[in-house]
């Protein structure tokens, strides 16, 4: 009897021990929970001085080109949605959209990523592809006052603002003053439109320093 009692207690406590050993369960029952919106900015930039901006005609989607064993840019299925929400937010912040030829203060570009890149920050293999995916300045690269790097870029939306008036023509560099990463928003088609628009709005909402 004594041994049976001891065994029963041990079995009960064993259950507690073994349950305690589980690390953590699968958390996600909703794709949207995975989405993360991250913004970086140049804290030396005076955003109150920026009044106008131009933006690309088309949001490009960066995909892997198996034939060429490299990346290429194709039109993003979410181009119109992304551009509409960027323009709406910029207007709410007091900015005026102009054509690139009007020498705007800011140049805005956006991409969706269907690839995984280790460095999303200072490494962009797909700028300068021409067409409507950029506003000109062929052969110019970006310069960043901040550093960031993620290896989960697949399914992300990126938005970048560059300071046109601070272009370094000697080094062919355009300084970036604001970057938004909406991670995971397009990694499935589940509620993609809502997740993208929520993410774009969130990126501007958490950047009050952009306001006029």
């Amino acid at each position, binding site marked *: 009897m004594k041994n049976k009692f001891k065994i029963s207690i041990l079995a009960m*406590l064993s259950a507690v021990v073994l349950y305690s050993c589980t690390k*953590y369960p699968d958390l996600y029952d909703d794709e949207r929970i995975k*989405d993360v919106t991250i913004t970086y900015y140049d804290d030396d930039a005076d955003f109150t001085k920026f009044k106008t901006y131009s933006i690309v005609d088309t949001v490009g989607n960066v995909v892997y080109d198996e034939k060429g064993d490299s990346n290429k840019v194709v039109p993003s299925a979410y181009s119109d949605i992304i551009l509409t929400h960027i323009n709406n937010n910029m207007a709410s912040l007091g900015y005026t959209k102009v054509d690139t030829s009007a020498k705007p203060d800011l140049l805005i570009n956006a991409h969706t990523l269907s690839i995984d890149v280790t460095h999303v920050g200072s490494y962009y293999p797909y700028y300068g592809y021409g067409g409507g995916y950029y506003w000109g300045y062929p052969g110019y690269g970006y310069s960043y006052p*901040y550093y960031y790097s993620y290896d989960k870029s697949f399914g992300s939306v990126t938005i970048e603002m560059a300071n046109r008036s601070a272009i370094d023509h000697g080094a062919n560099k355009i300084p970036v003053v604001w970057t938004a990463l909406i*991670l995971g928003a397009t990694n499935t088609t589940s509620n993609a439109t809502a997740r993208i628009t929520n993410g774009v709005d969130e990126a501007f909402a958490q950047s009050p320093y952009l306001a006029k």
Partner: protein
Amino acid sequence: MKKIFLIGLTLLSLSSFAQYTTISYSTATPLGGYRDFVASNSWVGFEAGYQHMFGEHLAVGFQYKYSKFYEKKDRHTYDFTTDNSVGSITGVRYSYSFVNNFNFSLNYIGQTNTSFTPYAGFAIGPAYIDNLLIVGILEVDDDTWAFSMTPQAGLMYSIGPGIALDLKVSYNYIPVKYDDVTAFQALGVAIGFTWSPLLD
């Protein structure tokens, strides 16, 4: 974990000597600045201990304690500043803390003429903490070893020859730096069973 389970079995088999062998279910409540990382109680934990009597009241031994803390916070924006960047991040946040104490214990075992046996003492030794922060699809895992100190007090209630119900309260302090947190602190309550030939 399997090794710890086997150690527990071994401890139980030694209960026929002049020792106390204890296995308990334990809970813990984070205190102080550590609540900024995880504020929810730990409802998943256990303790196992073995003490040898030296004289009538002094018990020396070792004990292992495991606590798992978990907290989910709704979608929220956090501002950050690093050496290289400044910005904000918005997402659903999950905080996990896995705390392992490997302690040497020293307890004073009281003697009464009733079924109750009180005790009090402290335990010190190395501790291993693994902290996991998840925001959306991003994960930050940080683990470290540190030195822990645990004052404790408890009461055994004899429920049969050689076996007692054991209730213990303890304060677990581990000086470890994690972001702005400078120490892990938690108030623990453990309930379990103690085996000893010294229990009537």
